[in-house]
């Protein structure tokens, strides 16, 4: 769990959790502590949300700090604002933990600049699958409210959320915490010196949150235990589902090759992916040769290779946000596979995607004598190995 930096403040929640957050952020804007906010607003049709960069505190009335769904992964919003340069203004972004983590990951990839960003997040109960929400916004809102009160993603949440172990206390500047203390209010917890300074500047008159902090922490721990258990079960299932050539084929058998999973993924930022490029297309003779050799091949070819390739390319940075599953039109559990493989590859390189812990991206780094997990895979090419002098 990320350590807190400085003293948290308490916001009263007698009027629900959204109002005090709106007021708090409005105060930040008015005092000039930040110049603008990135927050979700309801779209005019009312059945979804959009990220809005706003600097008019009046707009906060329409802002929804804790939306029931995550249509566009927030890291994409951060990227569109800061990809070219960090800009002069300080912008606070309030997003789900997995969106903040994807933002941090993108900053390591040179796609987001966090220098002038204040990253704020909260105890995330999970999100409703996009399709369910679009089909029935009303009952989705009801189940989300339920999730929010208990702090636990019920069976109406996205599968990725039910097994998410990074739903709270991720690396950020400010964290809104309400788990385990809802009777007393809500904590605004600084997670960085920048966050702590901001809080101090705001000079909010409230009793210090020191006494509530342990209560919050222990509730987070207890929910973490449950979600970890759920994740272990899900991973076991995925592991056996995807096993081997036939497993991969089964899981991805009705993939229509639309690459939506990739378009929705916050980490897949490449303008031109190899798998959409001319270079990846085989000429007819080559395909015919394959067909003759095997007796037949599927067309268009290489659907499975696309997924294997994407796993090889980005699983080290996958934050298990589940957007890929949400985007799949044929309901393939893409995120189950990606999260499971990501867990394996990230632990091999002793790396955790979305952390701001100073560790470089694993493929931009090496050790002359490799980490134990890596060593196992390339023994011959390691010191002491058969081909190492």
């Amino acid at each position, binding site marked *: 769990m990320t350590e807190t930096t400085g003293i948290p403040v308490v916001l009263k929640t007698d009027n629900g959790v959204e109002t005090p957050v709106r007021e708090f952020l409005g105060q930040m804007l008015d005092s000039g502590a930040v110049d603008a906010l990135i927050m979700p607003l309801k779209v005019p049709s009312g059945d979804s949300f959009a990220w809005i960069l706003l600097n008019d505190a009046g707009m906060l009335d329409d802002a929804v700090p804790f939306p029931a769904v995550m249509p566009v992964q927030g890291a994409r919003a951060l990227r569109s604002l800061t990809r070219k340069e960090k800009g002069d203004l300080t912008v606070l972004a309030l997003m789900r933990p997995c969106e903040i983590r994807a933002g941090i990951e993108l900053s390591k990839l040179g796609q987001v600049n966090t220098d002038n960003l204040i990253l704020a997040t909260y105890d995330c109960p999970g999100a409703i699958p996009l399709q369910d929400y679009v089909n029935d916004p009303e009952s989705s809102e009801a189940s989300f409210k339920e999730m929010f009160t208990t702090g636990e993603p019920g069976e109406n949440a996205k599968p990725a959320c039910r097994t998410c172990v990074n739903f709270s206390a991720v690396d950020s500047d400010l964290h809104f915490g309400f788990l385990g203390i809802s009777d007393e209010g809500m904590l605004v917890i600084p997670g960085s010196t920048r966050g702590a300074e901001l809080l101090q500047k705001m000079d909010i008159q409230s009793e210090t949150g020191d006494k509530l902090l342990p209560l919050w922490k222990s509730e987070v721990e207890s929910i973490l235990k449950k979600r970890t258990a759920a994740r272990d079960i899900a991973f076991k299932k995925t592991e056996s589902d995807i096993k081997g050539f036939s497993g991969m084929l089964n899981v991805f058998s009705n993939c229509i090759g639309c690459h939506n999973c990739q378009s929705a993924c916050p980490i897949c930022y490449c303008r031109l992916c190899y798998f959409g490029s001319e270079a990846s297309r085989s000429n007819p003779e080559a395909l015919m040769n394959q067909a003759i050799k095997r007796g037949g091949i*599927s067309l268009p070819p290489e659907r*499975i290779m696309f997924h294997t390739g994407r796993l090889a390319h980005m699983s080290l940075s996958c934050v298990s946000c589940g957007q890929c599953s949400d985007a799949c039109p044929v309901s393939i559990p893409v995120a189950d596979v990606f999260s499971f493989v990501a867990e*394996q590859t990230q632990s091999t390189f002793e790396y955790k995607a979305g952390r701001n812990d100073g560790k470089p991206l694993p493929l931009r780094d090496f050790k002359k004598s490799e980490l134990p997990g890596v060593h196992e895979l390339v023994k011959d090419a390691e010191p002491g190995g058969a*081909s190492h002098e």
Partner: protein
Amino acid sequence: MKDKKEKSSNSEFTPKVVGFLCNWCTYAAADLAGGSRLEIPSSFSVVRVMCSSRIDHNLLLTTFFKGADGILVAGCHPGDCHYGEGNYYARRRFAQLKKVMETLDLDPERLELVWVSAAEGNRYAEVVSDFTEKIRKLGPNPMNSSTRF
């Protein structure tokens, strides 16, 4: 069709092995081995690359998914890379792909990374023969009997 499959599962199976060899070391070792008339399995195809770090995931996956039974990546010994540290990065990238294949249970043992210097003609012949033999024992790449991939 039937004949073909039966043939490929008996001991006559000649594996198709592709070697990606670094220009500055292993490729020269291959030359040396050839010049010394050492025996190299005829089914071993060589692709020359300018450094082991030229190898990316797509290159290896394409080779694998198109049906190569084994893939050998060979570069300069650590410390000897012509470009400094290319082979260290290559080793990480290779390990990453291998981990994905291992996790998906897609025959990771068909991929191997070794270092062979320009002077090691004999070792080159040995490495290639040993790897080819290992792949022969493993049998054909399952991809080659799949009509759905």
